[in-house]
């Protein structure tokens, strides 16, 4: 019995395509359900330790017990999702599965993995609403200096984004794919590029996370959002490029799904990156 299972695993892993999907699937589980949630949890814990509610009352609008409960829920959910993911891989490995079937399972599983992130986002949003409602900050400050997108973004990133977009066009035309596929790919990339430009402009005047944020951190927050938008565009162009190459060389559909998973993971690595390096003294009582 055990021997049969081991034989089946060895057989599955000897198929390069299956092995490749498994590597990416494991990476997806580690990134989205172990590494990034760990980063989020460490950030929340450090925040509470370094800036306790007694000294920084304007940072917390909910009791500490709520925060602790949320951390536990999030931790439990992430571990549950990670276990299910590992279970799915084990089931696939011990049975007869093709690379494409496994890749479809991997991509279908991704939305389940990101659910806890949205839950945290929702909690954060609720906290911000409470902050706004309290109108804790009576004196509000703003700079009278104008802001431009170019003040926040290095030229090389702009050039890289433009080059990547143009490269997808060139490769698309060169690959001589059928019209519909090519148009869909180029159309999608154009939409995402326009959306990134819209996000960059929106970030310039985006609402402050809270009214306590210092002027320096406000600018840092805007800069971060703008850079994220352009990186999104660069990543998406790379994704489209990989699809065009996969289609041109007639590679298996699983390669396309692998590219989608990698793209997805990278987006989350960039997006979920809470930093504690900002001026928290603004949240002290009477500041």
């Amino acid at each position: 019995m055990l021997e049969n299972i081991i034989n089946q695993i060895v057989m599955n892993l000897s198929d390069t395509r299956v092995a490749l999907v498994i590597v990416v699937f494991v990476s997806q589980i580690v990134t989205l359900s172990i590494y990034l949630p760990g980063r989020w949890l460490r950030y929340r814990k450090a925040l509470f330790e370094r800036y306790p509610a007694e000294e920084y009352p304007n940072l917390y609008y909910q009791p500490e017990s709520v925060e602790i409960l949320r951390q536990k829920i999030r931790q439990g959910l992430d571990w549950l999702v990670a276990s299910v993911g590992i279970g799915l891989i084990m089931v696939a490995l011990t049975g007869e599965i093709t690379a494409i079937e496994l890749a479809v399972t991997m991509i279908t599983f991704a939305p389940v993995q990101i659910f806890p992130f949205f839950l945290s986002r929702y909690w954060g949003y609720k906290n911000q609403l409470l902050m706004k409602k309290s109108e804790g900050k009576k004196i509000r400050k703003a700079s009278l200096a104008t802001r431009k997108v170019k003040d926040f973004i290095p030229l090389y990133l702009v050039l890289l984004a433009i080059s990547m977009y143009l490269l997808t066009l060139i490769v698309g035309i060169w690959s001589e794919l059928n019209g519909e596929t090519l148009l869909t790919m180029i159309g999608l990339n154009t939409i995402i590029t326009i959306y990134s430009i819209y996000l960059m402009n929106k970030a310039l005047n985006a609402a402050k996370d809270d009214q306590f944020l210092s002027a320096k951190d406000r600018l840092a927050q805007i800069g971060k959002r703008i850079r994220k938008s352009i990186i999104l565009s660069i990543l998406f162009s790379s994704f489209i490029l990989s699809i065009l190459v996969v289609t041109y060389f007639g590679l298996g559909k699983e390669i396309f799904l692998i590219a989608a998973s990698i793209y997805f993971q990278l987006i989350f690595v960039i997006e979920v990156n809470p930093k504690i390096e900002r001026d928290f003294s603004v949240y002290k009582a009477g500041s």
Partner: protein
Amino acid sequence: MEISIDIGSEQPIFAQLIGQIKQAVMKGELSPGIALPPIRQLASDLGINQNTVAKAYKVLERDQVIVAKGYKGTFIHDDAKTNSSIDWEEKASSIMTKTVGNLRETGLTDSEIRIAFSKAMKESR
């Protein structure tokens, strides 16, 4: 140059904005030709309604402290320093006192003057 408002103050927010921008101009902190932030930017930074900032900018433009140049943005007026020192409320009050005095001299009663004033206000809209 930083601006600060007190949302708990009895003075309306738009009036605080006008006062501070005029003061900054008079102190030389905002010189002619300098661009002011767009309405959306200032409103989001202060966490207030865009209409409040728009109202302040409208009054400042009327007082020729700032000048709107369409899509290019809003800039400090060339004569902003002189215009900022003009107290428009005081000026209006002085003109009104003079006019009311003249009307009284012609023999009009206070109620007739009030009616005429209301009529003029309505017609000039």
